[in-house]
């Protein structure tokens, strides 16, 4: 799992590459907690490069959403496709979180 961030407009784009599973999610959580503790409040999770997610990864995303909510922030997901989209569908994530077709749309929605 690779975790990369960049700032665009008022948002922080978090690009996750590879897998979010029982092995990699603890590392993801550590990094995202540091990000939020550092003051980032609007996160856009770009999943264009995410190949695989399991319920362990979904729990990591839930933790992210809760932390952001507590700090008055927001989270949006972009480029959710393939297997990742299937898991989002199965778990009901699609109805719980805003999902956009692209990072640009997500940025626009946060503006």
């Amino acid at each position, binding site marked *: 799992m690779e975790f990369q961030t960049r700032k665009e407009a008022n948002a922080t784009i978090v690009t996750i590459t590879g897998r979010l*599973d*029982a*092995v990699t999610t603890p590392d993801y959580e550590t990094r995202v907690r540091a990000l939020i503790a550092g003051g980032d409040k609007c996160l856009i999770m770009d999943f264009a490069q995410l190949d*695989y997610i*399991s*319920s*362990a990864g*979904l*729990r990591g995303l839930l933790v992210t959403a809760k932390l952001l909510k507590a700090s008055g922030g927001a989270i949006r997901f972009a480029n959710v496709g393939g*297997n990742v989209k299937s*898991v989002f569908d*199965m*778990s*009901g994530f699609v109805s719980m979180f805003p999902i956009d077709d692209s990072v640009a749309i997500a940025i626009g929605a946060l503006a």
Partner: protein
Amino acid sequence: MIKVEHLSKTFGPVTVLKDITVEINRGEVVAIIGPSGTGKSTFLRCLNLLEMPSSGSIHVNGVDILDRKTDVAKIRQKMNMVFQSFNLFSHLSALDNLTLGPVRLLGMSRAEARSRGMEFLRMVGLAEKWRHFPDELSGGQKQRVAIARCLAMNPDVILFDEPTSALDPTTVSEVLAVIRRLTSEGMTIAIVTHEMAFARDVANRVLYMDQGLIYEEGTPQQIFENPQKERTKAFIDRVRSFSYRISSPDYDLYAMNAEIEAFCQKQILPIHTRQTLLLLIEELLQIYPPYLGSAVLDLTIAHSEKKASLEVMVESTGAPANPLESGEQPDDMGLSIIRNLSDRIEYSRVGNKNRLTVLMKRM
């Protein structure tokens, strides 16, 4: 094209082939399947005269190839063979492996042989490796060079003797893709293989060999979906399985995944099916951490080619309890994914173990 009558082969007191009578027609793709040790490879080697039959006859295009006056080298050139173990010349580059036969046996000029050799290497996707020696190539690449070498001899028939058996599972598909291409181009092929899905897919006719005989033959549909004889049914219905034991909460998920992927590749399961299986297994194993400190888990994946089904069974030691109903999961997400990926989930207590059997949905 090839007519075999009452062929038998004995090695000392052992009779390997009893009484083989079969015809292979031009342009046919004949898959030869069956348990190990039933004479499949010996049969191919007899066709190519790498083994001399003990009795019977083989006619190729009307010529009796067992006649002493027959030019055996010519027969082998027209009925070329691809071996399990590649049999490349290790001191020659990929291209030189391809040019040796045409120059020495077909009397081709070196320039023409090299030009054609490059064409065949290109056809098997290895043109850029022409300078490489066999030791510098992967198993799959070596086998593709061996196939190209075979084609360079202008054969009328190619005999494949378990061409993927010695390969790493990750390279099986690249070799099968090349063979598949040859079948679609009208080449006459006889292939001994354990890749049942491949045989079913590319063959016009399937010979099921058992006990030194062609025990049953038919179209892929007849043999794989409606075999008539008992031993054929038993062979086709067999289930291939993979087992993995987990005895620590700190088990290596990725090492296990790599082994599961290798198993799936061997079964030629599509990538999407593999990924779904890996997800299902990860979710199932997520249920067990409360038990893993004290229990041992045995994971079994069973693949039935006939039913095209995948079943995952997890057996755990410990007190009787359905792990799915333990209530110890942090939420329902994992269970929800498991249910979505499954057609059937069953819990049973077998001996001193809790057994969870999950039939994966066809995705």
